[in-house]
């Protein structure tokens, strides 16, 4: 589904990603871990198409297409979803209206008929329950006045609405209490299907109790320096990254 080859990227002339090789197949869950500042969010942003970053080398194939030549919105419509580490507030734009436009755009891209108003409302109700999102929040402005936990739940709610093929969740677990973590974790698991894939970026093992990864990668200074299975996350939780970093440097 996703094939990343020797990806280099810079921001303001500073190289952040320094040769990432990474591939994801349908049905898989990948976890990306690593110390702060190692480039995890940058990697996610580059996949999503954030224009702040410049790709200087390498290529990314998504379902056989050159991902890097696609616009941000076409990547999204083609099934790439980024759960933001810091979801953005959009005053005056209601969740319902925002999602309606997003969903119809995606359906148009995929050659599907637009949803009727009642189908859309039913879907909103149904998907809000996946993450136990207060239905009142869906009539409010996007993320405005949402608590930290609500913002993160709202990301997963949007994921449930948009049914991505490849979801990239950037520290969706940070700032969540135990209950919210469980809701988000089980929510993501409920959305798992054999034809979609998930990349979970996290600092902690605890989210991975719910979203069990097939592979765990460690990103450090813009490179994947180690990959393993789910036990690697447990070991990192216990022992930290130093043993890996020492080995690498």
């Amino acid at each position, binding site marked *: 589904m996703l094939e990343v080859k020797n990806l280099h990227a810079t921001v303001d002339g500073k190289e952040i990603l320094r040769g990432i090789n990474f591939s994801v197949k349908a049905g898989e869950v990948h976890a990306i871990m690593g110390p702060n500042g190692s480039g995890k969010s940058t990697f996610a942003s580059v996949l*999503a*198409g*954030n*224009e702040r970053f410049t790709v200087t080398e390498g290529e990314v194939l998504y379902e056989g297409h050159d991902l890097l030549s696609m*616009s*941000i*919105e076409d990547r*999204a*419509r083609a099934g790439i*979803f*980024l759960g*933001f580490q810091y*979801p*953005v*507030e*959009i*005053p*005056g*734009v209601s969740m319902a*209206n*925002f*999602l309606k*436009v*997003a*969903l119809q*755009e*995606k359906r148009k*891209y995929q050659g599907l008929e637009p949803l009727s108003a009642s189908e859309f409302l039913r879907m909103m109700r149904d998907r809000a329950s996946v993450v136990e999102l207060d239905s009142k929040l869906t009539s409010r*402005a996007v993320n405005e006045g949402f608590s930290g936990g609500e913002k993160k739940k709202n990301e997963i709610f*949007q994921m449930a609405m*948009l049914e991505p093929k490849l979801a990239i969740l950037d520290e969706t677990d940070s700032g969540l209490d135990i209950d919210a973590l469980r809701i988000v974790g089980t929510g993501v698991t409920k959305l798992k299907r054999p034809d979609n894939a998930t990349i979970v970026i996290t600092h902690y093992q605890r989210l991975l109790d719910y979203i069990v990864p097939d592979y765990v990668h460690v990103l450090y200074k813009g490179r994947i320096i180690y990959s393993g299975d789910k036990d690697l996350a447990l070991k990192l939780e216990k022992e930290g990254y130093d043993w890996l970093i020492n080995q690498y440097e």
Partner: protein
Amino acid sequence: MTGSSTNMNRAMERSLEQQWIDRYRADHDALAAASAPALNAPRKAALEAFERLGIPAKGSGNGDRYHYTDLRAAFAGEYRRATEAAAPKGSSTGLDCPGHRIELSNGFCREARLYRLDNGVMYGSLAAAAQEEPQLVARYYGELTQSEEDAFSALAAMWALDGVFIYVPAGVKEPLPFVIESELGDGRDLLSVYARHLYIFERGSAAQVVLHHRSDGDASSLSCQTREVVVDEEAHAEMVEVYQLGPQAVSVSGSYVRQAGNSRFESLSVSLSGSLLRHNLVASLDGRGVENHMNGVMLAGGTETFDYATDIRHRVPDGSSHEQFKSIAAGDGTAVFSGRIYVAPDAQRTNAYQQNNALLLTPGAHVDTKPQLEIYADDVKCSHGATVGQLDPEAIYYMRQRGLSLDEARRLQMYGFVREVLDKTRIEGLAETLDRLAEDKIDRL
């Protein structure tokens, strides 16, 4: 247009003010003969005031209230004074808002009469009210307009023959809004239009007023109108005004509100289109415990100029005022907000809030924003803020990541930006209409 070349030359030799004074002198007898005494009463003093004040030049005049916008150029044309309503058009262009409908054309009520409801409410033509209710009109007319301190207010007083009159007696809570449809221009001449409006909301009454100003694309007009709004003790009134004028329409309007104790007045003014729209919004908070809300939206594109000058006068203790204005300027459009807040020496425990946020979309667009605080009391909470910015790139990225196009993301953000103000109206169904009109304009910015 009118005038031979010799006429033009002669006109050029006189000062701009003198041309208007000469026009008034020529009209004087006809005006006097056509009006009830109440409307004639202030004309002479207004003329003298106009002679003294002149038309303020950009960057000067009236305590720099007219600092940012050149109005003199708009007054330089050869205008023909509108003397009656234009022929009605077949198609309806009104706002979709149920209520007591009043149709104005070039400052004249299409139905020159005063309607009377069973609950004592009266509404309709000011000229008719001045005939039928001379004492009531005379008691309030001209009390608030400042026609001796403001040149444009003076012009309206000099020439007005009609306008809208609304009277809601004490204790009456009128359930239906008054919906005023005001049409400018006739598509033939360069018209000058004058009108004065008087709304009286007596003690403990409640009322809502919706005003829709519009003109066709080919109609040229210069409109000078003033409105006096008397809000008595404990009365609650809301007023929403929408300007949807054509590219050849200039409007200078003044709204003068006086609030007595524990009253509440909310206004929302939306400038959607027009060549040059200048609004003077003045509220005098004369009683204790008064609440005033003044909100506005400007969507200026092309070469449009929208200019709001607000003036909130806290004269006694315990009043609160809340101003929120949002503007978007695109193309070579200009959006101006200057907000004066005056707090009298003994107006303690005043709470005054003022906010102006502007989006500047293009290099040719222009935004001016200026708070003017004159605070003479010491126990006052006053906060004001102004921002001039661009669309938020983070929000646009976020929306595009969900599949919205760049254009849709920009538009949605702009819709949201003004919706926060538009949705403040409590008039049934009106917020949706305003949102739709604003969205139409944003799509064309």
